[in-house]
């Protein structure tokens, strides 16, 4: 069992945040959803390839190799360096328990060795506890000199828990520190694409390709994104130019093949390039098989049907593969085979479509609940929520809102249970952890509140509300230095009178009188004229 990490490291704020609100405008994307997927389906290569573009940093293992050399050179077999080396070896061998014990021992010997924290993060990640991994990684980040591997690890964890906005900020920091590192661009582009910001993803990769961090993979991903945007001409030109610099690069060949597919006159060329890409190991064979089938589909084409069959083998749960196979078989007069494939398609796609529709309907219903609550009818709003929960028990938004309403009705225990259920359903949502921290702090369970808020800050360290509350909780616990640090960050991110006042009081208690007075002045300014 791993011991929990300590408080998060201090880091530079990157951007102001919107207030915590799972139903905010940013989360309500009108008339998107299934439609977006419809387009994605047609140009879905980027997602597959970009996922593969995410290079595992193995932050701890890599540094552990250095540690092993260092320990060996120093003849150190007992110190923290040696333990780190042991942990790295165990991690590489897949022995997670031994790795955890070694990294923990290294941390106990010398808590300033950030690589031990990163090692613990990797162990937690491999065990599937992503939030704990994030907490360890954040602890390690402040303690290592080379921050790039740690940042990449954090970004990966943020992506895995479904926190893209936070991952983007981490990756921005990575690019600031290491502008020549392609992974900082590639990964961010993948995330941007997944949050519907394709133009930004393209701009980012264009910046990398044109000088900051040129690489065939950057050009390949850029080409795929251009295709997704419908600019086949630009993708084709990019692929041709890039192939001159990096001949036989599978991803570039894939881009060229796909770009040529959009030209009805050059389908044969497209097929040639797609086949080359396959031979050279381009990612996403199933999708390439679909593209090859599409390229050859005209009337009845046995070859096209073969490609679709292969795609179905590789991607048995992809509705599109079954759909294309069905139409291919239909073109060849195999009505029975076509019906079977299309039936399978319907089975697979109806589950996805149903979830999309349900989520949209719940979103609308939540608006109604909020309006009821805003009108002062909390009991009515809770009653509406109960009905919704019956049919949508996997929608975290319902439990989050229910938690808020229960808490406002004084039912703290039930409120806690509700937000914890929301966390189970969507662990990446900061709000659930924040609300748990808020509810617990009101009940004076400061330890529990601190743990919940630490999880929230591990996901996103720049949420002013969370920072303020965590600072207050930690101050109550008597750790004034840490509280001051958190108040400082909160004041930087979202200055307001109450933060300055609380910060001033903590600084005064620490004996930092001049700083405290400065904060008091800020407090007076923000508070406005005295009543």
């Amino acid at each position, binding site marked *: 069992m791993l011991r929990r990490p300590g408080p998060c490291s201090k880091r530079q704020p990157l951007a102001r945040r919107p207030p915590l*609100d799972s*139903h*905010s*405008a940013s989360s*309500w*994307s*009108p*008339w*998107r959803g*299934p*439609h*977006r*997927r*419809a*387009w*994605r*389906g*047609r140009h*879905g290569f980027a997602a597959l390839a970009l996922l593969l573009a995410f290079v595992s940093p193995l932050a701890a293992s890599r540094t552990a190799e250095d540690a092993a050399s260092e320990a060996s050179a120093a003849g150190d077999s007992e110190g923290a360096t040696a333990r780190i080396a042991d942990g790295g070896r165990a991690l590489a061998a897949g022995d997670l328990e031994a790795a955890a014990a070694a990294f923990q021992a290294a941390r106990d010997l010398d808590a300033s060795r950030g690589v031990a924290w990163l090692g613990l993060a990797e162990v937690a990640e491999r065990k599937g506890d992503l939030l704990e991994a994030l907490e360890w990684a954040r602890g390690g980040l402040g303690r290592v000199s080379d921050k790039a591997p740690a940042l990449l690890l954090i970004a990966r964890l943020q992506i895995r828990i479904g926190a893209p906005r936070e991952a983007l900020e981490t990756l921005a920091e990575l690019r600031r520190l290491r502008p020549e590192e392609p992974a900082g661009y590639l990964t961010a582009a993948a995330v941007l694409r997944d949050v519907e910001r394709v*133009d930004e993803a393209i701009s980012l990769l264009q910046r990398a390709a044109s000088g900051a961090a040129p690489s065939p993979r950057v050009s390949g991903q850029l080409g795929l994104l251009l295709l997704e*945007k*419908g*600019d*086949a001409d630009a993708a084709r030109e990019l692929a041709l130019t890039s192939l001159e610099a990096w001949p036989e690069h599978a991803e570039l060949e894939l881009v060229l093949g796909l770009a040529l*597919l*959009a*030209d*009805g006159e050059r389908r044969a060329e497209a097929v040639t390039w797609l086949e080359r890409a396959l031979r050279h190991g381009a990612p996403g064979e199933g999708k390439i098989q679909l593209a090859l089938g*599409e390229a050859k*589909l*005209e*009337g009845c084409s046995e070859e096209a049907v073969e490609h679709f069959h292969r795609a179905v083998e590789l991607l048995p749960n992809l*509705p*599109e593969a*079954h*759909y*294309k196979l*069905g*139409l291919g078989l*239909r*073109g060849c007069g195999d009505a029975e085979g*076509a*019906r079977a494939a*299309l039936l399978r*398609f*319907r089975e697979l*796609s109806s589950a996805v*479509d149903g979830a*999309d*529709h349900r989520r*949209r*309907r719940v*979103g*609308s*219903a*939540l*608006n*109604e609940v*909020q*309006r009821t609550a805003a009108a002062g009818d909390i009991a009515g709003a809770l009653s509406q929520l109960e009905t919704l929960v019956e049919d949508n028990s996997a929608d975290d938004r319902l439990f989050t809102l229910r938690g808020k309403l229960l808490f406002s009705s004084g039912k703290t225990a039930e409120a806690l249970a509700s937000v914890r259920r929301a966390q189970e359903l969507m662990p990446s949502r900061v709000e659930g952890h924040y609300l748990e921290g808020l509810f617990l702090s009101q009940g004076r369970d400061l330890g529990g509140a601190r743990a919940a808020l630490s999880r929230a800050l591990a996901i996103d360290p720049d949420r002013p509300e969370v920072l303020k509350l965590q600072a207050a909780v930690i101050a109550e616990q008597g750790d004034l230095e840490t509280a001051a640090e958190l108040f400082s960050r909160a004041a930087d991110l979202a200055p307001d009178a109450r933060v300055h006042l609380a910060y001033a009081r903590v600084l005064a208690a620490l004996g930092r009188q001049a700083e405290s007075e400065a904060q008091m002045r800020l407090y007076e300014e923000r508070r406005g004229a005295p009543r």
Partner: protein
Amino acid sequence: MTGTAVRSSGLVLLLALLGAGPASAEALFEDATERLGVRFTHGVFPSGQKDMPENMGAGLAVFDADGDGRLDLFFVQGAPVRGGAEDPASIAHRFFHQRPDGTFAEASERFGFGSPSADRGVGMGVCFGDADRDGDLDLYVTHYGPDIYYRNDDGRFVDATASVGLGKASWSVGCTFFDADGDGDLELYVASYVDFSAENHKYCGDAKRNLRAYCHPDIYGAVADAYYRNDGGRFVDISEKAGIKPSADGKGLGVAAADFDGDGDQDVLVANDSTMNFFYAGDGAGRFEESALFAGLGLNGAGAAEASMGVAAADLDGDQRLDVLLTHLDLETNTFYRNGGDGLFLDRSDVSGLGAPSLPWVGFGVATLDVELDGDLDVAVVNGHIIDNIERFDAERRHRQPAQLFRYDGKRFREFPDALPLGPLVGRGLVAADLDGDGDEDLVLTQNGGPARVLLNRAGDSGASVTLRLTGRKSASDGFGAYVVAYLGERALRRELPMAGSYLSQGPPEIVIGLGGAARIDSLEVYWPSGQIDRHGPIAAGERMELKEKLARKNGAGDRGPSAP
């Protein structure tokens, strides 16, 4: 030569022979709305509650209402969703009669549209046909609220809804008259959208910011479409018996009827919003089998349902097969379904050139026309977002959007930027029609909450064409369901007789064939829905002809494919 030569334009022929070059972008179309006196503004009548019917309309019809040989305009008007109109005149559907000089006079009152009841529903779409077989065109206007059937009594339109058994009361949208059972009279298909009502209205948008938006159709359930058999001028709802899906899993908007699968009878394609489209394959006896998935018309090439709005059916790639183009929401392509034969359609949006340029826009009305009379069909699309305050949710998107013109170069469509002198619009209905009778097709469009616009085609002035009107005898009297194949040297051009389609709209039953520099059509085949194939020709450039279905013999019935001359 068979048929009646109505008019011939020597100037057009002369210019064609002189080989005048293509017009510049600036000269392709002229915005003649004001000059022609077309002053119609669609009213939204916002309740402030973002009631869905407000933002979906409305369509238009272009047809010769009184048989004077000139095309008139009918615009569907909105109305308040809640409560009646304070001024009933403000919700009247508007009719513009074309004068001999080509300008239009507002004649709603005179033609019977001037005095609606104050609580009439919100106008949506319109379709027409000679439903009572008396030689003129009758109108069916769909509403959020009861629909209205206007019988054309010698140029005056009379609300005869109840007397013919029509008047669907759910939220109707697209409709089409067509001869489903081959008896020569016109059946009626009416698509329905969703089960929105003021009573079950939902709040969509961002309640915390008090920022309300029109709801996505997913929020509401679907409503079953209706199919009416024409029994001697009286309509009978036989939807379920005929095979129309009662399960109501489609949210219909645009509708088109044609012989899509080439088996000699009329089928129906329903553009459904966010649900799989319906393709009702007809059996020629008035029954249908829904087979969109099997025909490849239900979903896009990736197997995804799209937010289908408008529909165009035409031989867009020149292979003499009827293709389909559906317009869609932004971030979806307008999807081009190429007819591969044997009733199978494949999504070829990318290859066609029609897909990618449509991604940023919300497409509604769509029209096919040969802009420069070069023998290739081009495509016009009007766009406009559904959410009137979309900018407040997404700074990159706009409510008003540009219209687009795509020209076919023989291999693919290429967008011709700024070809339509319109600026950003909230486009909805769109119809191509030779309004000024100069041998090329012009464009008329409607906006949601904005003025209708008329664009006269100037690019076609330098080309040559033949214009055809068809009169059925065994087939429907207005020729609905017929198509022609014109042979010009090595070229064979298939053209459909226009019927209802686009977005809730219908253009005139006239076929304009651009000759692409040829001086004449060498021969012409008319494929009547009765199975009759008539042959005509040669036909000189500039002719306007009325072709009547021959009754003497039945050439090659069942052989639906065009043959060499």
